[in-house]
């Protein structure tokens, strides 16, 4: 385990106190004057340092509080710290850090306020500040919502600068020189005579003095790392097969577990018969757990074989058994008129005759990251250790404490590298069930690995959603658009069912990326309807924006077509936000929009502002004899600052592929209360043969920085839908498109 994990949490929170002969640096962001009365409610101890830099005789460790699911979060966070600390990425180690309130996520506040992200007004930012304080008090340590970069952009550079200045102060005391005479460079303080004192040699001294918190961040023109292509810190390990993931966990005395949970998710176990497992080689124990049964063996495969040999009678699902019934619930919800929220209502929608109508659907989809869910847990009467890849370490810590009865401070969650997540590891059932298994074997580390089939069957999917739209056009322009969408509530499912918290207001994810699009359509309304509980759901890469981007842009394209306008021109005319307009202009320019196309070729465009990032895409397809082929995609995204252009391009391409793959190929449907799909043969993403060429441009036309893990997903499906309409004359109305069109 990394050093951060083995050092007592207490010593972290006291900041610069010496730690094993070293020093942990943080910074006093809380002390910055924020004009908000809530600040006064912070207890003295809450102004804790947020420690990001740990230096001792062994070396320099940068603590990166956001987990890495494959998006390069460790590297990006390390680069932000290293930029000001004056170290190179190959001089440091990266550690995700233990669960701690100090690592609360500021940027989540941005999507929790009733202002669109394009609104950077004082009122909007004050509101964000308030929500931010709530997050601070709750200590929400969560990786998601494309928040890693916005959250860390300033915080982590300040942390680096504080550490650097404190090390200089330590060197000044040691040498009798003034700090102004000292420079820093590649992990050392440099004296006027050229002599270098490595940071490690200053750690003990630095631990004795008060951190220098009065720092000025360097202007971007002086940056060495940020904005330039980097070698990701995990790349060498991932290219030599030496990167270790949660599933590779191995410890002295560890046993292997497999599990079967009721495929009618959340249903009960009526009875089971494990007699077949008796005498199976390596099988040690059969253990009932909440909603299922587990097996302990001496090898993963033996555990898989044994758990499959158990005969279980499962209870009913706590939701409708058949898929048609799920759709009916959504239709009934819309018909009932019982709205959850109407966050946009411009002009006079009620008095405008709207004759253009549409009904679109988005299916349940699974996360299905390539590394199946797994966790390793060791329980003793006084302490629990959890090793897992997870986006919510603090919630997991609390959940495990509840199950095991061990006090929360004695539950140690160690976050490991994840083989993808896409929101999958925002849920921690695998840890909870593993804790139950481990309680039956006190002192023994138990590694639970989900079979792929189990991982799919137990997924908390993206919700299904049903949209009905009305609109009108006049004199070649779009004049009205009224969108109503119904879906089950993600937040209810996450916070209500699994954390036992009520949802105080509407679920903002139901109308996410529908209500806050930067268009000035004269009569423009968005209404969300929260359906009764259906299959369990959770956040899926780009959350509500993944289905709503499709709904909004597919319908806008339909209206623009009716108006006889050009889909790029008409959007530019309607757009109210300058960075968004520049994003669309960029992608039009990159693709040579408006030029002649080859035989059987067609193009489609879409735009979506999500997680504060405007993203526009144009796709070109060929409608050939054997089916539709995806040729090229052009993408532009406005993020304020591209931290690492290489990783940026990789993530954007991955986001487009994610959006296209699921739009074409993927759905989860229920029959007899169970998901009908169970492995990648019936839940396909995109494979290399279907992957288009993808050209990416990152834009930096505004000050505030936003993330890019999710925003490339929402425009992909509607851009493709428009291209399909242009090629075939038929507009796709439901995903996956492969249900209605043939792709090659």
């Amino acid at each position, binding site marked *: 385990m990394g050093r951060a994990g083995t050092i007592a949490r207490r010593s972290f929170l006291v900041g610069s106190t010496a730690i094993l002969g070293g020093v942990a640096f943080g910074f006093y962001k809380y002390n910055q004057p924020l004009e908000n009365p809530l600040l006064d409610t912070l207890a003295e101890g809450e102004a804790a340092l947020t420690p990001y830099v740990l230096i001792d005789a062994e070396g320099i460790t940068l603590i990166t509080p956001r987990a890495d699911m494959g998006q390069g979060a460790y590297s990006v966070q390390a680069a932000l710290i290293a930029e000001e600390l004056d170290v190179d990425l190959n001089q440091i180690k990266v550690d995700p850090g233990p669960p701690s309130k100090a690592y609360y996520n500021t940027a989540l506040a941005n999507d929790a306020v009733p202002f669109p992200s394009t609104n950077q007004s004082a009122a909007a930012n004050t509101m964000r500040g308030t929500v931010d304080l709530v997050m601070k008090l709750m200590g929400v340590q969560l990786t998601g919502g494309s928040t890693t970069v916005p959250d860390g952009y300033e915080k982590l550079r300040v942390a680096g600068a504080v550490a650097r200045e404190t090390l200089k102060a330590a060197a000044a005391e040691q040498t009798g020189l003034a700090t102004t005479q000292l420079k820093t460079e590649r992990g050392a303080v440099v004296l006027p005579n050229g002599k270098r004192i490595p940071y490690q040699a200053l750690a003990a001294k630095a631990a004795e003095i008060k951190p220098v918190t009065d720092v000025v961040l360097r202007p971007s023109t002086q940056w060495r790392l940020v904005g330039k292509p980097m070698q990701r810190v995990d790349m060498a390990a991932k290219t030599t097969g030496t990167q270790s993931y949660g599933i590779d966990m191995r410890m002295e005395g560890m046993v292997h577990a497999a599990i079967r949970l009721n495929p009618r998710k959340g249903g009960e176990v009526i009875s089971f018969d494990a007699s077949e497992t008796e005498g199976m080689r390596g099988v040690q124990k059969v253990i009932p757990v909440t909603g299922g049964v587990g097996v302990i063996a001496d090898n993963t495969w033996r555990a898989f074989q044994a758990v499959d040999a158990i005969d279980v009678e499962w209870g009913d699902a706590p939701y409708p058994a058949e898929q048609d019934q799920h759709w009916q619930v959504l239709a009934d919800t819309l018909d009932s008129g019982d709205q959850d929220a109407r966050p946009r209502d411009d002009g006079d929608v009620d008095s405008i005759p709207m004759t253009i109508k549409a009904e679109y659907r988005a299916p349940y989809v699974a996360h299905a990251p390539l590394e199946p869910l797994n966790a390793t847990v060791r329980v003793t009467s006084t302490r629990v250790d959890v090793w897992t890849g997870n986006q919510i370490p603090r919630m997991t810590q609390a959940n495990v404490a509840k199950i095991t009865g061990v006090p929360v401070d004695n539950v140690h969650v160690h976050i490991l*590298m994840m083989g993808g997540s896409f929101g999958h590891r925002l849920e921690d059932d695998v840890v909870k069930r593993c804790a139950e298994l481990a309680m039956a074997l006190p002192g023994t580390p138990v590694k639970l690995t989900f079979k792929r089939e189990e991982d799919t069957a137990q997924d908390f999917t993206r919700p299904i959603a049903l949209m009905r739209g009305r609109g009108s056009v006049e004199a070649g322009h779009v004049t009205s658009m009224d969108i109503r969408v119904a879906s089950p509530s993600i937040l209810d499912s996450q916070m209500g069912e699994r954390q036992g918290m009520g949802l105080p207001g509407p679920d903002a994810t139901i109308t996410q990326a529908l209500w806050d699009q930067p268009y000035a359509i004269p009569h423009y309304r968005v209404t969300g309807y929260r359906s009764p509980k259906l299959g369990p759901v959770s956040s899926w890469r780009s959350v509500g924006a993944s289905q709503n981007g499709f709904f909004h842009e597919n319908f806008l394209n339909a209206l623009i077509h009716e108006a006889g306008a050009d889909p790029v021109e008409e959007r530019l005319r309607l757009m109210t936000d300058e960075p968004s307009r520049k994003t669309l202009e960029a992608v039009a320019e990159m693709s040579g929009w408006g030029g002649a196309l080859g035989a059987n070729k067609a193009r489609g465009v879409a735009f979506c502002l999500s997680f504060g990032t405007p993203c526009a895409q144009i796709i070109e397809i060929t409608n050939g004899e054997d089916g539709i082929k995806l040729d090229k995609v052009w993408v532009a995204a406005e993020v304020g600052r591209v931290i690492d252009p290489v990783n940026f391009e990789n993530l954007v391409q991955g986001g487009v592929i994610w959006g296209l793959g699921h739009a074409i190929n993927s759905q989860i449907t229920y029959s007899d209360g169970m998901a009908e799909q169970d492995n990648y043969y019936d839940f396909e993403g995109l*494979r290399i*043969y279907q992957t288009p060429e993808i050209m990416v441009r990152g834009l930096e036309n505004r000050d505030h920085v936003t993330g890019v893990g999710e925003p490339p997903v929402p425009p992909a499906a509607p851009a493709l839908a428009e291209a399909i309409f242009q090629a075939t004359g038929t507009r796709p109305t439901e995903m996956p498109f492969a249900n209605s069109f043939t792709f090659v």
Partner: protein
Amino acid sequence: MKLSVNGTIHELAVEDDMPLLWVLRDELGLDGPKYGCGVAVCGACAVHVDGVAVLSCQVLAADVEGSVTTIEGLGDLAEMQAVQAAWLEHQVAQCGYCQSGQMIQAAELLANTTSPTDADIDEAMSGILCRCGTYPRIRAAVKTAAQNLKGA
């Protein structure tokens, strides 16, 4: 049962029907080959047997004749080193979980095809799923590796 893995001969006493993948991972502690699907649809478990890419979740350890090379072993294929160098240069990986399978498959492709076209690459590599969507970089890296092998 005898099994040659990365140049070492192992004496094993496992069931006849245990797939090679689980022998490698849980009996020999080689974690480079990954478990993704268990049913031959993801390719995360690919290894070389005498230079040929095989899905180790589908091959019973008892049936293996020949030497197994995992991503951890350098193996006899010069292509493997060129592939890894190109993968590093293009920074292909995101989560990285699929990448040992990708590289194993790419090395086999390059051992048979010196100048693969996009169509060759798509055909050879379509069995190896990448949920993170690193395919554009995989295409580029395969071409770089091919170039470097020719120059060598």
